[in-house]
C-alpha cells in the first residue's frame, strides 16, 4: 500500500431472480479487476458472490421476484470487500446454517455448501441474520499483487 492505495466503492440493487446470479458475479469481478487479481483470485470472487446472491434469492426471498438484493463492493488498498444483503426471512441459527452440507431444502439437490465455499474461497466471512428481517453477508479477499509497485 502507500501513496497509490486504491479506494473505491460501488452499489448495486437488483431483482431477486436467478438470472441476476451471473449478472452480480460479473459486476463484482469487473470491479475487482482494478486490483489486478490473478485469474484464480477472480474466479474465487465470482464463485463466492454467486453463492451469497443465490442464498439471498433462494433462501432469503424464496425466489420472490418482487424482492430486491443489495450488493456493494469496496476496495481498500489491496483488499476487496463484498456485501450482499437481503431483507428476507433471515436465519434463526447462523452457525448451524454455516455447517457444511446443512440444507433446509433436502431433496432439491441443493448441497448446503454455499457458506463453506464462501469461507474457503475468500479470506474473511461475516454473516449477520435476524429472523424476519434478513441477512447480511460480508466477504473480504486480499489480492496479492496490488500496491507493490512503489
Amino acid at each position, binding site marked *: 500500500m502507500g501513496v497509490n492505495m486504491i479506494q473505491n466503492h460501488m452499489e448495486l440493487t437488483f431483482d431477486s431472480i436467478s438470472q441476476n*446470479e*451471473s449478472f452480480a458475479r460479473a459486476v463484482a469481478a469487473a470491479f475487482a479487476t482494478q486490483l489486478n487479481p490473478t485469474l484464480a483470485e477472480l474466479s474465487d470472487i465470482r464463485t463466492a458472490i*454467486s453463492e451469497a446472491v*443465490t442464498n439471498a*434469492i433462494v433462501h432469503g426471498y424464496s425466489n420472490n421476484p418482487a424482492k430486491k438484493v443489495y450488493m456493494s463492493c469496496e476496495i481498500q488498498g489491496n483488499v476487496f470487500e463484498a456485501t450482499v444483503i437481503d431483507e428476507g426471512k433471515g436465519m434463526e441459527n447462523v452457525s448451524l446454517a454455516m455447517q457444511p452440507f446443512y440444507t433446509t431444502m433436502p431433496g*432439491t*439437490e*441443493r*448441497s448446503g455448501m454455499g457458506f463453506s465455499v464462501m469461507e474457503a474461497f475468500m479470506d474473511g466471512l461475516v454473516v449477520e441474520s435476524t429472523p424476519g428481517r434478513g441477512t447480511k453477508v460480508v466477504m473480504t479477499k486480499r489480492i496479492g499483487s496490488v500496491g507493490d509497485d512503489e
Partner: protein
Amino acid sequence: MQLANKRKGSSLTVMLTGELDHHNAADIRETLDGMLDGSVKDLILDMSGVTFMDSSGIGIVLGRYRRMQERDGRLYLSGLGGSAEKILRMAGVLGLVERK
C-alpha cells in the same frame, strides 16, 4: 450452458459447456436425466468446457452419482479444472467419483 452427448455402447459421454449455477442447475439436471435410457451403464461428464461452477454443481454431480448407483452403473468425471475441481474436491466428491 450447453450439453452435447456422445454414445458408445453402454457408455454415454456428456460434454458440458458454459456456466453452471443455481439458475440453470434444474435444466441441466433434467436434460442429463433425460439422456439416461435404461441401457446406459457408464455416464461420463466431460467438464472441460465448464467456465464457471458454484456449489450448484455439487448437487448435479452427487445426484447423478446416486442415480447411476441406483441402476448399477457408474459416474465418471473428466476434464476437471479451475473452480469446478476446487469445489468438488472441497465437498469430498472427488473421493467418491472416479476421474477419467
